[in-house]
């Protein structure tokens, strides 16, 4: 139990010659909620996508639940099982029903029996308040509903950590709250969460720490109260001023 959920040390990432992430150090304790924000192109999505190897880092170490992320496929699989991910564009599988979207990975990866997997899926679909949509296809749902299904799908794998990559950025304004509500509920239950988001209200409400990134570096990290009322860095102040709309 002593391992933190995520430990990143001295991590660098390049796209060709572009130095996308520079010397990232970040430790996330179990049960901790982290919000990562920053201007576009600052590397926040890249950072979160390195944690489950959707992007490859080039130096430094990443450990997730005590497993070292390296080229060993078993390690990568282990980490992906433990870290659920929710994407900006939902990325539901359009050729499968909502229920099949939720049961696919538990059946194939966790080798859960279908009936059991469907029970679990229905439980999570109830939690995100759309059990009645279970037999529809993703294309028949609204954006907010799709994103809630995506959260349920990730939860069905019973992960230790949830990674959110701008989960509300592709949503119409009136649908944002239904997704945030689910995320707040998840946070209250003690899930370890790393969220890239511009929802500052959400950050204030649930984050233990807010991390501000700029030009591939972590520029500032602080508890939300301090972050919003007394930012230390000039760039952080500018950014907060912009997102708060003043």
């Amino acid at each position: 139990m002593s391992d933190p959920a995520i430990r990143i040390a001295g991590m660098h990432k390049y796209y060709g010659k572009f130095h996308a992430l520079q010397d990232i150090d970040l430790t996330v304790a179990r049960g901790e909620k982290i919000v990562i924000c920053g201007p576009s192109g600052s590397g926040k999505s890249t950072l979160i996508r390195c944690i489950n190897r959707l992007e490859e880092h080039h130096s430094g170490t990443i450990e997730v639940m005590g497993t070292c992320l390296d080229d060993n496929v078993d390690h990568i699989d282990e980490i992906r099982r433990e870290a659920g991910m929710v994407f900006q564009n939902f990325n539901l599988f359009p050729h499968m029903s909502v229920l099949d979207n939720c049961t696919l990975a538990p059946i194939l990866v966790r080798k859960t029996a279908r009936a059991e997997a469907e029970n679990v899926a229905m439980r999570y679909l109830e939690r995100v308040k759309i059990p009645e949509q279970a037999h529809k296809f993703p294309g028949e749902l609204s954006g907010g509903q799709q994103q809630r299904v995506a959260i349920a799908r990730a939860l069905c794998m019973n992960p230790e950590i949830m990674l959110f990559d701008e989960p509300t950025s592709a949503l119409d304004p009136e649908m944002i709250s239904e997704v945030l509500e689910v995320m707040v509920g998840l946070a209250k239950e003690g899930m370890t969460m790393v969220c890239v988001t511009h929802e500052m209200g959400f950050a204030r409400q649930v984050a233990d720490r807010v991390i501000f990134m700029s030009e591939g570096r972590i520029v500032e990290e602080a508890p939300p109260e301090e972050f919003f009322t007394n930012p230390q860095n000039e760039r952080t102040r500018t950014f907060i001023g912009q997102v708060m709309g003043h």
Partner: protein
Amino acid sequence: MNASSPAEISRQSLPNVLKDRYFATRIDTVVTLTFGAVSLWLLWSFFEWAVLHAYFDPANRDACVQSEGACWAVVTARWRIVLFGLYPFEEQWRSALACLAIVVTTVLSCLPWFWSALRLALLWVVGFAAFYILMRGGMLGLELVSERDWGGLALTLFIFAAVVLLGMPLSIVFALLRRSELPWISRTMGFLIDTIRSLPLLTIMFAFAVVLPFATPDWMNGQQLYRVIVGYAIFFACYQAEIIRGGIQSLPAGQEEAAKALGLRYWYRVGYIVLPQAFRNALPPTINQVVITFKETSLVTIIGFFDILASGRAASGTGEWSFATIEVYVFVALIFFVFVFSLSRYGAYLERRLRVGTR
């Protein structure tokens, strides 16, 4: 516009629809009348030729020669050559049953119930076994008929089914290799596909039928027919691989990322996420490719096989019926039409059915 108002409904009556669609303006009227007259004239001429002045009874051969109508008598007299080629006359019932076996197997594999790898594989093993035993014989008290003597519809159907069945899995392998993350694999595959696509099908068939045996050891050669089928299947696979690759590349990158994030390994991602969606996207060009493949089976004539088109030529090739070539070609064209049109309609049905998931 309020389409449900009473005035609108009364406008839907037949004369109104006709007027709206065909006689709305003066130009519309002229176009409608011109094309109507030309179509009617063409249809009437054909009807006159094919029915009114036609002869159906072979006993009337001499009257046929004089007549300006169609001489269907040639089909009545020679249809068995068209359908069965050089297959021994007494045994042609076997060829007919073999055709039926392939058609039934094809129709069954179009039913959604059979859409699992295991069921499809079983079905086709049984289908091909039935075809082979019936056609070739040499067992179960059936007289041996070597592949050299196969012909007509049975041969066309056999080549077509075998090429598509061998070629389809092969094309998936090609497409996946083509998209390999290892550059030397994807480049080699790309080069192979491009090379084979640059060669005419005739050349490939000829190479496999005639040239290959000089280069390979005897045990590898087998019957010429099977070599031609393998060559054609590789040719088909190269085209189809590019179609599937197009289908794969039209998927958003997020699909694969989501599958990775859920912990699905490569083969699960390919089998459950990538290929089902890629096939859906690639369905129209796939049907296109299958239809072309069906029609191009006729090229096996150059190696001396009697597919249905060559058998048709043979049917009117005797001095007795040599004046009736057109009638035989029309008959063969009709057979092609029945098969290809069914394929197209099935493709349209599949598109409708699969859209359900992607609305």
